[in-house]
């Protein structure tokens, strides 16, 4: 196998259960390709180590996350309240719509009378 073929295989090397005999033979006599394996090994080690390195989240994030249960509770309470008093809210809405309709009608009539 040529070095170029070997180098194309190396990104997958760590995922394979066993290196092929051909690959092992090549690596045993090619220092360039062995150095390439070392680089991938360093990369793999670095990536594994990142799992214990954390970023500092924005200051407000923690508060927002902690508040999730109480926010959800408030939303659920509001939703339950609206559902419990649905008929009263619907009645109120219907009443408001009737008042608005009457007012609009009265205003239109007043304008017509003024114009006449």
């Amino acid at each position, binding site marked *: 196998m040529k070095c170029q073929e070997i180098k194309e295989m190396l990104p997958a090397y760590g*995922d394979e259960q066993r290196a092929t005999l051909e690959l092992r033979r090549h690596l045993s006599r090619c220092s360039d390709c062995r150095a390439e394996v*070392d680089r991938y*090994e360093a990369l793999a080690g*670095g990536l594994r180590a990142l799992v214990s*390195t954390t*970023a500092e989240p924005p200051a407000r994030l*923690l508060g927002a*996350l*902690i508040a999730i249960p109480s926010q959800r509770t408030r939303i659920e309470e509001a939703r339950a309240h609206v559902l419990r008093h649905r008929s009263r809210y619907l009645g109120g809405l219907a009443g408001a719509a009737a008042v608005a309709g009457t007012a609009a009608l009265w205003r239109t009539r007043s304008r017509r009378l003024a114009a006449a």
Partner: protein
Amino acid sequence: MKRLKTTGGPAPRELVSPDLIERCTRGDEAAWRELVEATHRDVYTLCLRILGDPHDASEATQDTYLKVWRNLGGFRGDAMFSTWLYRVATNTAISKHRGRSRRRAREAGVGEEVMEQIPATGSVEAAAGAKVEVARLEDALAALPPMYREAVVMRDVYGLGVDELAAQLGISETAAKVRVHRGRKKLKDMLFSEDDE
């Protein structure tokens, strides 16, 4: 003969006790606070590494914890909580990423912002003196095209299996492997210049 030790990836640390999770499932808000304090940095960092943008990472973290709060009752104690939490976070970040990739214009210049957020200390030394500085590695990860970054982060940082990675990304296992391998090669090229060779 040396082998790259990426098979299976790192095992996630258990971040909280079963007792704490049990209290959370009963609606104990003090327990919830404790759980969030113990885990939110890891979840935010995971989202940041996948999304490459602090604002998107914050939103994905909030969405993750909303889902966790709603679904804690469905968490089965036979799996590690941190594994489940990472899975929810990964799913959420990927969904967000898919939505965001429709707005590709925002992709440019993401790396520097990420770098400011992640500590730039330490290094990992492997055989033959090859060394990877954590800061350079985070920088290189942030500079990877998003499709390779999410694959490498999930596979090599958080240890997802190829089958799980493929399922999360909604692609075939072969396609998932290709993304990981291309991502690793790009990272290696960024980290080790021709002068090192």
